[in-house]
């Protein structure tokens, strides 16, 4: 399992920089290979359809996304309109989820807020996957100098206290939605890099890959035709978990005032509003609804990720 590259000779250099991150690289490979193994076994013993919960989860995610997209078309109150005679109102016919401490309709704010959270979550991870994932894919297969340097870079990025960088960059650059997204995508790149790399690495010396190489396939072809399809399940699974993580992190940034500018709602800043200024005792609904929505979304995303991984992972070692 660990460092089969040495056997296959896919890296060129020896020396002090080899196995730059020996432990962590081996760790990643182990982790991913264990996960892959579990899929075989799961399949043998527990072969069932995706399940009712899966479809429920998918439906919930779909609903959230749909509402976020068509929000403008729905008969929703203006999410930023402050109605000073309806401060902290509980759920009623006029305000299905109640109002917040400035009299804004919570249902509307949660739906519009989902836009920011979803965009930040999915976009940041997508960008991170495209950059970090591709680098990891190539690096895991090729090994060698590039792998060593990229590993070092990822390690350094992870060792640097992220909050300092975020504060600095937001102070310097400002906080609009796309800027926050980019900052967060940079933050997730090393994580996605490592996971995809480990997965890529675990396939790099499988028989079918070796076979393809002996048949004269170019590296590019091998990477994208042989390895990538095998890597996708782990990548998607981890990616979805990261989406969940990013959505939560956006909440913390909102608490620090580092997220999207007011009065644009995001789940993060609604939760932050609900947890400060003593609102928790006065009007717990402010915090409750976005937390509930986020909780259900996270649950759904992970459930989907789990089931997909179980169901659709490509069997290994076919050759």
């Amino acid at each position, binding site marked *: 399992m660990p460092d089969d590259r040495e056997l296959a000779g896919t890296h060129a250099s020896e020396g002090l920089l080899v196995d730059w991150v020996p432990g962590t690289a081996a760790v990643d490979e182990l982790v991913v290979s264990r996960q892959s193994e579990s899929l075989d076994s799961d399949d043998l013993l527990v072969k069932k359809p995706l399940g009712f919960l899966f479809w429920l989860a998918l439906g919930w995610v779909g609903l959230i996304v749909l509402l976020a997209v068509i929000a403008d078309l729905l008969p929703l109150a203006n999410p*930023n309109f402050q109605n000073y005679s309806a401060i902290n109102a509980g759920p009623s016919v006029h305000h299905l989820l109640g109002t917040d*401490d400035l009299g804004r309709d919570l249902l509307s704010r949660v739906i519009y807020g989902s836009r920011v959270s979803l965009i930040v979550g999915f976009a940041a991870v997508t960008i991170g996957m495209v950059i970090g994932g591709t680098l990891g894919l190539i690096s895991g297969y090729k090994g060698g100098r590039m792998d060593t340097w990229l590993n070092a870079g990822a390690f350094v990025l992870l060792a640097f206290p992220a909050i300092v960088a975020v504060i600095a960059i937001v*102070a310097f650059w400002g906080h609009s939605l796309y800027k926050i997204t980019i900052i967060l995508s940079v933050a997730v790149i090393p994580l996605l890099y490592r996971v995809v790399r480990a997965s890529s690495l675990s396939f790099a010396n499988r028989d079918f890959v070796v076979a393809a190489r002996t048949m004269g396939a170019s590296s590019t072809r091998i990477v994208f035709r042989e390895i990538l399809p095998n890597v996708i399940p782990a990548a998607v699974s981890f990616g979805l978990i990261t989406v969940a993580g990013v959505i939560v992190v956006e909440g913390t940034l909102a608490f620090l005032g580092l997220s999207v500018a007011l009065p644009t709602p995001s789940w993060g800043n609604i939760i932050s509003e609900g947890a400060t200024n003593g609102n928790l005792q006065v009007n717990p609904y402010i915090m409750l609804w976005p937390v509930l929505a986020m909780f259900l979304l996270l649950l759904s995303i992970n459930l989907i990720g789990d089931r997909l991984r179980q169901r659709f992972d490509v069997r290994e070692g076919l050759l």
Partner: protein
Amino acid sequence: MASGNEISRRSFLSRSAVAGGAVALGAGAPSLLAGCSSSSGSAGSPTTGSKAGVGTGTPKRGGSLTVGTLADIDGFYPPSNHWDTNGYNYANAIYDPLMAVATDGSIQPYLAKSMTSNSTFDTWTMTLRPGIKFHNGSDLTSAVVKANYDALKVSLLTGVALKQVASVTTPDDMTVVYTLTAPNPTFSSGLTTQVGYVVAEEMIQAVTAHPSTAPKPIGTGPFIYSQWQPNDHFTATRNPNYWRTGFPYLDQITFKPIPDTVQREASLRTGVVDMIQSTDPNTINRFSGSGGSNYQLVDTRTGVIGQPTVAFLMLNTAVTPTNDLRVRQALAKGLDVATIQRLFGGGFAKPINGVFLPDSPYYSNTGYPTFDPAGAKALVNEYKAQHGTPSLQLITITDPLLGKLIQIVQQMWNQVGFDISISQVQQANIITDFVAGNFQAATIYQFGAVNPDLNYVWWSTTTLSPVGQIGLNFPRNNDPQIEAAMLTGRHTTDTATRVTAYQAVNERLAQDLPYLWLDQYLFSEVAQNRVQNFNNPILPDGGAQYAYNEGIFVPTQIWLA
């Protein structure tokens, strides 16, 4: 002890008071306050029977008091620190000021024995009390006071406050003579502030020898410095040789900074601290009625001497579109201040039409615009016809309460036709923005002062400078009438003239509209019932001292039941 010239400290990301929060005390030329409110009392207290903060029964010796504060002090050396009200609370434990404010608004000697001036008010003679010793045993002499003055004078931070002093001489051990550059009848009031706090020579020498270290604080105060773990706690122990015999009653006092207001209140309720300070109006609400039944509440809804700190929106008169008077008028008329007070200020409605509140002798009907959305819209349309939709950015610091405020204001102004964007800025940056005039509209708290002359620097035409350069007249309001009136108020000895002058200032401000008044900025303190007499300090020569000066309390006379 009139500070209160400060920008909000209540910011999540600024535990230390200096982080852009404290605007230095610019002034040294205040005027003696003539006959102001004399109540040293407290707001309606939830405890039945005795008045909150006024001790009943015989004072008991001993015990340790823990105070939960909003932030930590940035340092104990007056020449190199900014003390806002929070900082003064720390300072009052181990230092004494030369002069102090009485409840009738007059400036009385504290560490000094007397302070008199010549007939032209340009030479002031101060005599010291004999026999006062610092915590290190050294004597308080005029040489020490001069050494303090010398250090303050050369400091980048405090030098400007002493600009009006031409020289200081010490004819004998107990006498200090200040010679001013120009007559100033109110000079002594500056010595109730940071520049009037006296430290031992040993401390000054320690700083001179090691300029960038924090020296051990040595003062004459009721408590002796014991331990300071920055951002964690500050402890001082009883001074057994305190020159005010009989005081203090407490054995020990500890300050703990707890930046989050809700957590600070929870700390009081769970017994982590015995007393807390707050600038959140909701604290007053939460500790009134049944919520405060085991506590004593004192706040600045009553008992303020001079002007209280006010919260307002500041408009830059030197940039578009706020340089157009119609725009400022529209912004003023578009503000539903009553609703803002209800939502943001805890609901303690107080009509504000200027920098002086109704119980001030300088109060008058200034003609400040009232809430008139129709009138505002008309003005906006007029402007729009010529220049297009007026758009501007309203900024504040990254504080949840203020974030709420600017969202309210944004909606109100948008409803009368403006295009308002809002932004929350890091506190350090906002000070720079104000000083350089790089803003259009902003929230700010300022102007608390025992007498109006302390606010001269913020309104004067002499502190004007173009946008991009440093100027303390933040809104760049160029009004020679205000300048003339402030100077009249400073120099005149006739009460009626002074009143007219300051009323004129207030009325000009209502015309120029660099400031849109919102609410009084309330300070409150809440203590457990066993904390006795925290709101009832006495001056050394007798008479009641200004008890709760915009968030500053005196620890000397506190005892624990």
